[in-house]
């Protein structure tokens, strides 16, 4: 059981980064459906940088940069040029998919640089790792997973306990009021779209550098879309996103587990479970009508001051 849960955490980590990234973007009132694309750009940039520099830190920075670069395209088009967010996000996904397989072509089948791989080897945290049950599940993981914990906590504190976090939520809930109260709306939107993109890039990099340490162009395989659904599932709360990511991480490895336990279910049908579960979650969340569970009011709307 402990080992199963520990594997859940590993499977959850890429989802976690992407979900928190999309959540921050949506808090600014923007629905960026380019998560899948940004994850792929982050994955390929991180992998390439790791391969050439043999430095894990540079790989992570490149992944952030790649994700944020994709997000910048989205920001320019939707914030400055007020393009349709849905179509722009979809295009970013298509672009990112092409970009990753194009750039990654020469690296197909390449292994992660050994130094980078060693950096992401499992390390038991002192003290915490010895806690019964929780230790083996949460604190005998790799550095990247720990970074994920930090990101969740920071995101929650930032959104709910700081002034910029409050301003950000104001921008997403009611852009024109936020503008009237003197918040620099465009700056907030740009900054958080980029921040969200960087986190999505990290999520992709986890897949390429740790989860599947050989380059293949379909590493992300729909996880970006699951992250978009998880944001709804988590009702825009980073802590709930953490739970959601673990749940989904678990579902995605359930098939292998069941087969190992001797159930004779077709692997291909079990592979459907995370996607079916996402559908069920989207249906359930459309039923939740509580005040707490609603998306930011101005989500998806372009803002044009002169039209107030």
């Amino acid at each position, binding site marked *: 059981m402990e080992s199963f849960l520990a594997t859940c955490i590993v499977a959850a980590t890429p989802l976690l980064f992407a979900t928190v990234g999309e959540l921050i973007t949506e808090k600014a009132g923007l629905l960026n459906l380019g998560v899948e694309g940004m994850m792929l750009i982050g994955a390929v940039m991180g992998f390439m940088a790791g391969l050439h520099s043999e430095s894990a830190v540079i790989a992570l920075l490149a992944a952030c940069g790649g994700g944020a670069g994709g997000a910048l395209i989205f920001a320019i088009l939707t914030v400055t040029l007020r393009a349709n967010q849905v179509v722009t996000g979809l*295009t970013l996904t298509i672009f990112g998919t092409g970009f990753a397989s194009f750039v990654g072509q020469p690296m197909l089948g390449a292994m992660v640089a050994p130094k980078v791989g060693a950096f992401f080897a499992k390390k038991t945290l002192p003290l915490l790792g010895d806690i019964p049950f929780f230790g083996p599940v949460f604190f005998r993981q790799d550095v990247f997973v720990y970074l994920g914990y930090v990101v969740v906590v920071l995101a929650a504190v930032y959104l709910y306990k700081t002034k910029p976090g409050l301003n950000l939520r104001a921008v997403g809930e009611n852009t024109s009021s936020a503008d009237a109260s003197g918040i620099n709306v465009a700056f907030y939107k740009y900054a958080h779209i980029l921040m969200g993109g960087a986190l999505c890039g990290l999520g992709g990099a986890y897949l390429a550098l740790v989860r599947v340490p050989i380059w293949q162009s379909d590493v992300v395989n729909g996880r970006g879309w699951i992250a978009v659904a998880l944001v709804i599932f988590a009702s825009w709360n980073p802590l709930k996103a953490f739970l959601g990511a673990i749940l989904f991480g678990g579902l995605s490895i359930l098939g292998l587990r069941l087969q190992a336990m001797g159930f004779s279910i077709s692997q291909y049908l079990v592979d459907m479970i995370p996607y079916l579960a996402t559908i069920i979650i989207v249906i359930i969340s459309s039923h939740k009508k509580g005040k707490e569970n609603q998306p930011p009011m101005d989500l998806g709307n372009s803002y044009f001051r002169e039209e107030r």
Partner: protein
Amino acid sequence: MNLLRIAKRDDISRKFEWVVRAAAILLSLVFAGLILMIFKLNPLEVFKTILIGSLGSEMRIHQTIIKAVPLIITSLGILVAFKMKFWNIGGEGQIMMGAFAASYVALFFPEMPKVLALPLMALAAVLVGGFWAFIPAAFKARMGTNETIFTLMMNYVAIKFVTYLQYQAWMDPAAKGFPKIAPFPEWALMPKLFGLHIGWIIAILCVIGVYFFMKYTKKGYEITVVGESVETARYAGMNINRVIVIAMVISGGLCGLAGMIQVSAVEKTLSVGISGGYGFTAIITAWLARLNAISVFFVCIVFAMLLQGGAYIQVNLNVPSAVANVVQGTILFFVLGSEFFLQYRVLPGSWWKKMKGEVA
């Protein structure tokens, strides 16, 4: 104080519209060229090879048309849904399920004459593709469920389902362990006309059909009204739930038909690769065509050239065919950005006035 002031345009001339669009496409090609140059490729050579690869010989022109057919039909399906602002990104899954239904007829029904078999396969494909779209549409209509994620997840479910068929349930024992489904019998294959399978005629008929449906029928008009404003539609007494469901079933049905053509005429059996990304590319083409059926036809031919040319450069220049995706994405980015300049004019802001004032 601001550097630039932005004001809404109220009149746009046709000519201006075309100038802006042409400029956007030109800029996007320049930009795509820059990306290619970063990867040490000569953009002119790549573009030239794409042209040669897609139009250079009769065989290649045929290949381009074969790629254009499913793209046109799928784009028409996407168009109907997007016109309603229902973001159907489940085209891939609907193609897949349509292909599955047609394959079921071809593989498990007794032998029958072509005139019976092909319409039956097409009908099965339209119904099952339509059903695949009906599920998210029904939830959208009843509960307001987010259709973007729903339709997308349906893609993955369909892909896993067909994978299951190909690798397990329907695997051909005669294929010596290769995960393949048996080829279709002759009676389930599409006939050819002028050296090309008759899918191109179906595509043209679909273009005309969707054009008239959207422009001249009550249902088509209702779809447009719901897309522009749900409130207006409700005030006018339209049954919005019904409009949503009908539009989505048409949308999914068209995608399903594209799947049937792919299995019956191109691949000659069912496989996981059958949807070939058309469900996603169709989103770009439908949007570039401004959701107009006639424009869809022309945009799709250009995009089929990119696809076919992309496949050709992979062999010829040893450049991954994904270059075509990068170029497609770039084109749409620029066209999306250019819409802004059609709707708004950019004027010098108050900062410039102040500067002038200070000088004077």
